């Protein structure tokens, strides 16, 4: 009895452990193969350069856990950068007025899509696809060209660094990303909302029969993803210091890839926010490896990510069929 229960818990954690092992192996290989790779700053840069991916990954994890998908995240990031830049540069708002507004816009955008999905039983894929078109189109309505940000607050936050040990430092964006991971873990494992998300992903009819607030939670999942996208957009604005309609093109696919590599099952109901962090770090370390190598072109990143996705999906299938 004890043994079977142990085995069951183990098999739930296996994808997560696999992800962490892949990250450790890649990091180990990089440290051995390239001089200068094994330094605190290189690893902190993984987080700094992928902070926005990390944040949308948290939102995407909840969406995928609930059995849905959100294709609009990349374009909401672009819209956020664009609105921030236009408000700050053209209308001379202060950053502290602009940031709450863009967060509200992203959250409302997510809530609207969630409501459409839940109320009219529409497919998340198509609704968020339309949302993606809409958000990108709205960017171009504001401006076709890139707007660079020279606002003092934005540049100050963008350059602010928290010094850590031995000269290594971390940016505000990376700190926000870590905070969001913590919030995600807290939401998923200690709140009613988190438990309901897992239940919906496991089986929506069962969740309904259990009397769980399925409708409210479904809308909230997309609302949360919209908020995460807007927050990632704010971080992206700090990172790029510009607003542009072509920012973060295709980032939704990177986010989905990070979630899948992080061990979350696409059929919903199984997965961990913590795994998504490592999914993001794996995507980041592949790029870093390719940059360190120098002889490989950037498109190898995409091919390697595709191959990793393939391997992880194959493993997921193996676990699903065993269960």
């Amino acid at each position, binding site marked *: 009895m004890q043994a079977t229960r142990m085995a069951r818990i183990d098999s739930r954690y296996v994808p997560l452990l696999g992800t962490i092992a892949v990250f450790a192996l890649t990091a180990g290989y990089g440290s051995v193969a390239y001089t200068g790779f094994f330094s605190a700053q290189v690893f902190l840069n993984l987080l700094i350069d992928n902070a926005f991916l990390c944040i949308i990954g948290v939102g995407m994890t909840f969406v995928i856990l609930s059995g849905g998908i959100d294709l609009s995240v990349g374009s909401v990031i672009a819209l956020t950068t664009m609105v921030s830049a236009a408000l700050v540069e053209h209308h001379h708002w202060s950053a502290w007025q602009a940031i709450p507004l863009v967060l509200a816009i992203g959250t409302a955008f997510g809530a609207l899509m969630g409501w459409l999905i839940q109320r009219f039983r529409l497919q998340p894929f198509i609704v968020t696809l339309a949302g993606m078109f809409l958000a990108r*189109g709205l960017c171009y309505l504001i401006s076709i060209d890139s707007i660079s940000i020279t606002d003092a607050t934005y540049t100050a936050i963008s350059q602010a660094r928290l010094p850590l040990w031995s000269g290594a430092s971390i940016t505000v964006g990376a700190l926000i990303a870590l905070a969001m991971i913590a919030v995600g873990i807290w939401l998923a494992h200690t709140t009613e909302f988190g438990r309901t998300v897992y239940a919906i992903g496991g089986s929506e009819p069962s969740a309904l029969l259990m009397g769980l607030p399925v409708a409210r939670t479904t809308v909230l999942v997309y609302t949360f993803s919209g908020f995460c996208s807007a927050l990632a957009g704010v971080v992206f604005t700090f990172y790029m210091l510009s607003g542009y309609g072509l920012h973060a093109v295709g980032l939704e696919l990177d986010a989905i890839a990070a979630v899948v590599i992080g061990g979350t099952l696409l059929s919903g109901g199984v997965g961990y926010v913590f795994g998504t962090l490592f999914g993001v770090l794996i995507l980041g370390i592949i790029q870093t490896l390719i940059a360190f190598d120098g002889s490989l072109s950037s*498109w190898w990143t995409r091919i390697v990510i*595709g191959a990793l996705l393939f391997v992880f999906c194959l493993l997921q299938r193996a676990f699903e069929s065993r269960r």
Partner: protein
Amino acid sequence: MTMQALMRHRLLWPFATLVLLLAVNAVFNPGFWQLQWRDGHLYGSVIDILNRAAPLALVALGMTLVIATRGIDISVGAVVAIAAAVAALMIGGELVVKGGVQTHVSRFPMSVAILAALLVAAGCGLWNGLLVAKVGMQPIIATLILMVAGRGIAQLLTGGQIITVYYAPFFFLGNGFLLGLPFAVFIAAAVWVVLHLLMTRTALGLFIQAIGINPAAARLAGLHERLITICVYTFCGLAAGVAGLVISSNVKSADGNNAGMLMELDAILAVTLGGTALTGGRFSLAGSVLGALIIQTLTSTIYSIGVPPEINMVVKAAVVFVVMLMQSAEFRAAVRGWVVRPAAGGAR
């Protein structure tokens, strides 16, 4: 007769949308319907729309069958880029003067190059089909793998550059005319007719619908469900490959970075506009062709009424929202509720 009435009913909305768009065009652009006969072929806005819609229609036809089996293929854009890259690389081409006569020389014979590109594209589709039917992955994820990696492969093939083709015979596919009409239109029409015959004259159409409605029941009924699914994905890859050839021939080059970018979304949109539900089952090939024409007409309408082309995406988003709401039974019921509510309240 009843069948015909049904057909007419299902295609009514996409057809009405297209007619409306064409009418808007005609109002804003008086010369819209004018056709000119120049150099032995027809010229005009309508011909232009037909020519430009052909690659999208090809991709949408493949996508229709995939969606009918309850699947989705988001890798078609990458496959378009791969097929274009293979063809452009193998043809290459240069203008050589031989004995005072200018002749075009290609690296490989053009037929070999085209065959190779189509084989590679079909291979991509086969890979997707195997992942979906044999491994049992969700279609969106199975094809996401190729969407991510395929773009990288296309960039790898082209070295991240735009490969220009210097071989005039190849340009016929995307720029040539036959009987006064663009050749690309004939390609799309031929694929449509062949598919239509296959779906209506053989049981294949019924099989595909059966798989889409209930895969387990279809398998229990003795259908080779997996084989058919694999074939459908392979065909979708092949159709994307043909579209890739037409596109690269039209622009006389192959761009691994941008060719076919976001085409998967346009194709899915075309299929949805044509009345095929994403939940699988009943599908309409003619509807998807109409959908492709609607998207292309929409684009040229936006250009012709003089609004900035950037609004295109907002309009597209609005169209998708309207169409999917109209397809939703819950929405129709809600609307009925809003309209009928006073009466119902009175009855209560």
